[in-house]
C-alpha cells in the first residue's frame, strides 16, 4: 500500500516537476512567473490532437509538430510582446502573461469549442507491470521515464552546450552577458521557446488521464507553481525535487487524511514554506538593495 502510494506520488510528481522546471527556466531569465504556461501547453496539446484526429497524422509526427508549434509560440511571444515593452515592471510583466493566458484560452475555446475530447498515448490504457507488491501502469512508467529523461537532457544542455551556457549567463546577469557579446534578446526568445516545449511535454503526458478541454493544464499549473515555490523559484534542481515531494505528500495526504481536500494540500504547503523560508527550500536568499 505505502510503496504503491509512493510510486503514484512520483508519477504525478514528475508532471509537477516538468511544469515547475518550465516555470523556473522563465522565472530565472525574465523574473516573471509565466501564468500563460498552462495555456501554451494546452494549445499545443490541442494542436497535437488536431493533427491526429483531423489530419490523420501518426501519433509521433503529431507530437513532434506540437512541440515545434509550442517552441514557435514561446519565441513569438517574447519577440512580439515582451521585447516591445520598455523596461516593464514586475507587475506589467505579470499582466502581460495574464493577457497571453486569456488570449490563448479564448483561441482554444473559439477553435475547438468547450466539449471535452480525449487524447491518449498509443498504448493500452490499462496495461500494468507487477513489481513485487507494487502495480505500475505503463502510462506512469512512461511519465516517470520521460520526465527523468527531460531533466537529464536539460542538465546536459545547460552545462555542456554553448547555447545552454549562454542561457545561464543571461539568467545570472543579462547586462554582463550582453557586454560579453551574448545576444540577450535572442537567448531570451529561445528560453521562452524551450520552456514552452517542456510545458507541452508535461501536457501531453497529462492529457491521457484528464479530459482534453481548455482547462486541461489548470491543475498541473497550480501544482507546478507550488512545486516551484517549494524548491525556490530560482533553482531548477529545487523545482524538480519540489515537484516530486509535492506529488508524494499529496498522494499520502489523499490516502491517509482526506481525499476531498487533496487539492488544497499544495496551497497549504506553499503558505507554510513561504512563512518559514520565503525563498524556498533549495535556493539561496539574496538581500535586495534600494
Amino acid at each position, binding site marked *: 500500500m505505502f510503496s504503491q502510494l509512493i510510486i503514484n506520488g512520483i508519477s504525478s510528481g514528475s508532471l509537477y516537476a516538468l511544469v515547475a522546471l518550465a516555470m523556473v527556466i522563465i522565472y530565472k531569465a525574465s523574473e516573471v512567473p509565466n501564468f500563460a504556461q498552462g495555456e501554451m501547453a494546452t494549445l499545443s496539446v490541442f494542436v497535437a490532437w488536431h493533427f491526429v484526429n483531423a489530419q490523420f497524422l501518426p501519433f509521433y509526427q503529431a507530437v513532434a509538430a506540437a512541440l515545434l508549434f509550442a517552441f514557435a509560440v514561446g519565441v513569438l511571444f517574447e519577440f512580439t510582446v515582451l521585447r516591445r515593452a520598455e523596461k516593464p515592471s514586475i507587475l506589467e510583466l505579470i499582466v502581460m502573461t495574464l493577457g497571453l493566458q486569456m488570449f490563448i484560452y479564448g483561441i482554444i475555446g473559439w477553435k475547438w469549442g468547450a466539449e471535452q475530447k480525449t487524447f491518449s498515448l498509443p498504448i493500452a490504457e490499462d496495461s500494468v507491470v507487477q513489481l513485487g507488491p507494487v502495480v505500475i501502469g505503463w502510462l506512469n512508467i512512461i511519465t516517470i521515464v520521460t520526465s527523468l529523461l527531460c531533466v537529464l537532457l536539460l542538465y546536459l544542455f545547460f552545462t555542456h552546450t554553448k547555447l545552454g551556457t549562454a542561457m545561464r549567463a543571461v539568467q545570472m546577469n543579462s547586462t554582463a552577458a550582453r557586454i560579453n557579446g551574448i545576444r540577450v534578446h535572442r537567448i531570451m526568445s529561445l528560453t521562452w521557446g524551450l520552456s514552452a516545449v517542456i510545458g507541452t511535454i508535461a501536457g501531453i503526458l497529462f492529457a491521457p488521464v484528464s479530459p482534453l478541454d481548455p482547462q486541461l493544464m489548470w491543475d498541473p499549473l497550480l501544482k507546478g507553481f507550488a512545486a516551484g515555490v517549494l524548491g525556490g523559484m530560482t533553482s531548477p534542481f529545487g523545482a524538480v525535487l519540489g515537484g516530486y515531494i509535492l506529488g508524494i505528500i499529496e498522494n499520502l495526504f489523499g490516502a491517509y487524511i482526506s481525499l476531498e481536500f487533496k487539492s488544497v494540500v499544495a496551497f497549504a504547503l506553499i503558505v507554510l514554506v*513561504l512563512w518559514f523560508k520565503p525563498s524556498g527550500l533549495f535556493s539561496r536568499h539574496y538581500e535586495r538593495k534600494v
Partner: protein
Amino acid sequence: MDMKRHYYEDIQIFQKPVHVFWFVILLIGLVILPLVTRNYTMSLVNFIAINVIVTLGLNLLVGYTGQISLGHAGFVAIGAYATVLLMQHLGLNFFPALVLAGFVAAGFGFLLGLPALRLEGPYLAIATLGFGMAVTQIIGRSTFFGGRMGLKVPKINIAGITLSSDKELYIVIISITVLMAFAMRNLTRSRVGRALIAIRESDIAAETLGVNLAWYKTLSFAVSAFYAGVAGGLLAIIFGYINPSIFDFVMSILFLAMVVVGGAGAILGSILGGIVVTFLDLKLNAVTSMPLIGDLLREISTRWMSVSGLPNFRSVLFGILLILFVVFEPHGLYGIWLRIKKYWKTWPF
C-alpha cells in the same frame, strides 16, 4: 502648467474652480440619468458603477501601493455572502449589513496582507491567486453557504420602501459609488496616500524615511478588500442570486484589466477603466448581434474557427487589450487623457 505657490494647492480635492463646476455637472447628470433612460439601461449603469467601486479599491492596492492581487473576486464573494447571510440570519437591515460585510472583507484583506509583508511580486501573485480559489472552493463545499447551488438574496427594504426596479436600486448604488470615489480621492491625497506611493516607488527607501511598512501594506490590503466587499454586497442585490461560480478567476483578471486599461495610480483612471471594460464585457456577450462586426466574426468562425465557440471571443479580445495597453500605453486611458490635456493647454506650441 500653472504655478503652485503653496503645498496645499497641490493636495486640494478641487484644485481649480472649474473642477467644482464639472463635478456639479457630473452630479446633475447622474441625477437626471434615470429620468431619461429605460430600466434596462439602468441595470447596465448599476453593474458598471459596482465594478467602478471594485476598481477603485484594487487600484489603491495595485496602482498606489504597487502590490498585486489576482484574487480580488474572493473579496467580492466574501462581501456578497456576508451581506446576504447577515441579512438572513441576524435580520439586519441592508445598510448595516453592507457596511459590516465590507469590514468582514477588510478583515480577510488584513489577514492576506500579513503574508504579503514577506512576499513580493511573483510570490504575492501566486498567494493571492490561491486565496481567490480557496474562497470559492470553501464556499462551494459548505452547506452553510448554500454550496454550489448558491443563495437567494432577500429583497432589500429601506425606510419602508422595498427596492425592486433598477431605477430605485440606481439611487442607492450610485450614491455609494460617488461617496466611495470621493473617499478614495481623499485618502490618496492624504498622508496615508503619500506613504503608499512611497512604498510603491521603493519599499526599503520608504521604510528608511519612517513609513511603517507593516501597517501601511496591511492597511492597503484591508481598504482595498473593504471596497471589494461593499461592491460584492451591491452585486448580490442586483443579481438577486449568488453562487460561487460567479466569482471565478476570470472575474479577478477582469478587475485587473480595469485597473490596467484605466490607468494604475489614478482615481479618474479607475473610473474610466471600470466603465470601459465593463461596457465592453457586456457588449461582447451579444457580439454576434452587433452590426458589421458580428457578421465578420461569424464569417471568421465558420471558415477557420467554430461557431459554437464564438463566445470565447471575449477572452481573446481582453487578452489582446491587456497586452496592448501594457506595451503601448502603460498609464492607460488616464495617460491618454493627460496627453490630450497637455497638448491643448500648450496648444500653438
